[in-house]
């Protein structure tokens, strides 16, 4: 049995009276593409910073590739590449210099330059390799940040909201690259606000709310479990037959959305409407997405 890429056991983090992580348990296996979702302030970045050693857990244990992030932090950090959320940069150096320094901090020398150049090229930074970090646009800075996290070729890559404020083209390019790394065996952990992104990329997702993991499953299971398909009906009248009220998600101005636990319910809904002599002006079957899951788990209720 191989060691998990990341193992988190009963991790608590307190900042004074703020209890930011409340006993998080999570295992990410090697080779996974894992999504960590949650609203602002849910504790995603706190969890990532604790894995990265930027924060120390108040209690509990975290290991990266089997190395404890506190007791065996050198081995743990060797195995980890982190893309921070903020667009931070060192204004004194150009892109290639920064990448070589970054690799050097991890003990990598000249033999690593081939890899650095490959990262530069794949992320579309070749033209900017000799440009000072200060002079890069926001999107280019983001690429450089990703490149820096990869400079020492870590087996586990953590990206903290890497696509915040990034245009569509760059987002595509980034995901192609990250997908390729994942296919080559790197474990990828991603936090994001873009649910469709997590849905398209991640094989498993965890959802966090107020410092706790409230859902953890494969993306497909979560979609099935929490959000069946929806049926949207435009009716010729403002009321719904009473028999359909238990399925009602929302309805106004004659447009009603019904939640379906399985497709068989379409038949039931239509026959009930026919029985009540209701005219159907329009009808749409809507696929569920992670947003629904997300809202049902972390939303208002």
């Amino acid at each position, binding site marked *: 049995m191989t060691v998990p890429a990341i193992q988190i056991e009963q991790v608590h983090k307190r900042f004074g009276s703020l209890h930011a992580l409340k006993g998080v348990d999570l295992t990410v296996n090697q080779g996974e593409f894992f999504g960590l979702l949650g609203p602002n302030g849910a504790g995603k970045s706190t969890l990532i910073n604790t894995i990265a050693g930027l924060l120390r857990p108040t209690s509990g244990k975290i290991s990266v590739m089997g190395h404890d992030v506190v007791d065996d932090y050198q081995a743990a950090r060797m195995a980890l590449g982190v893309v921070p959320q903020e667009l931070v940069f060192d204004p004194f150096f150009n892109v290639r210099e920064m990448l070589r*320094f970054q690799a050097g901090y991890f003990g990598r020398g000249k033999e690593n330059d081939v890899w650095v150049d490959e990262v530069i090229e794949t992320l579309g930074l070749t033209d900017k390799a000799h440009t000072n970090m200060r002079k890069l646009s926001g999107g280019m800075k983001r690429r450089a940040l990703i490149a820096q996290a990869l400079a020492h070729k870590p087996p586990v890559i953590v990206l903290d909201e890497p696509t915040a404020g990034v245009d569509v083209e760059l987002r595509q390019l980034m995901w192609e690259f990250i997908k390729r790394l994942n296919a080559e065996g790197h474990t990828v952990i991603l936090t994001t606000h873009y649910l469709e992104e997590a849905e398209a990329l991640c094989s498993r997702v965890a959802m966090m709310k107020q410092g706790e993991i409230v859902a953890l499953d494969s993306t497909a299971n979560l979609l099935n479990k929490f959000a069946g398909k929806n049926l949207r009906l435009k009716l010729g009248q403002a009321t719904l037959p009473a028999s359909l009220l238990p399925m009602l998600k929302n309805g106004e101005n004659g447009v009603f959305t019904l939640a379906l636990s399985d497709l068989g319910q379409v038949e039931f809904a239509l026959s009930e409407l026919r029985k009540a002599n209701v005219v159907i002006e329009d009808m749409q079957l809507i696929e569920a997405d992670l947003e629904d899951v997300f809202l049902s788990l972390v939303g208002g209720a």
Partner: protein
Amino acid sequence: MNMLDQLITQKWRGTYTLFKKEVLRFWRVAFQTIASPVLSALLYLLIFSHALSGHVEVYKGVEYTAFLIPGLIMMSLLQNAFANSSSSLVQSKVMGSIVFVLLTPLTYMQFFIAFLAASIIRGLMVGLSIYLVAIWFVNVPITHFVWILTFGILGAALLGIFGIIAGIWSDKFDQMAAFQNFVIMPLTFLSGVFYSIHSLPHFWQIISKFNPFFYMIDGFRYGFFGQGDISPWISLVVVTAFLLALAWLALKMLKSGYKLRG
């Protein structure tokens, strides 16, 4: 530095890379970090020597202008060693780029050594530059080179460490500037850069002896003229003691992750 790149072993590469980055950081802006302190020191020299030469003879047979030069060299060396580590740390904290180092397997000791070594290099480069320019105008003897080198390195190290402490503690540039203006400047100016403490009233002579900068400058000057206000051996003991105390504090801060890791 490229030759050094080849020689460095895997074990030392992390420390060496951080050291190299810290050296290049100031070297890239050498106009500000080397040339400008050299110019300031020369202006001091010009003004003080014009105003005071012929009026003061501090040591027998030593011209005031010559007397002034080791003090000015040491003053600039100390200030720049401090500025190197402190401004680098504050800047990378404010910019957030400190995470690039914090995410690496570098130990707190490696971090300390790299920042300290870069500060010493900056201090010595500024000091040497001032000396090389000054000897065109003034004849400055070198009596005991070993003492000059010893106090030059110890002084740069002491202030480099003090800069690490100030850089970690400060959250903003103005807090760091406060260290510079309210601690370093007064201690240097009151340490005997421009005068011998024997020319002071008795009370101020005693006060001066509580100032660690006095020992660094007096020991350094001894290396040039073979005479000083006190024995260089006493200065060596005092400076080393201060150095060890500050190193202990800085390492304690770094080890605990104070203000760097939450």
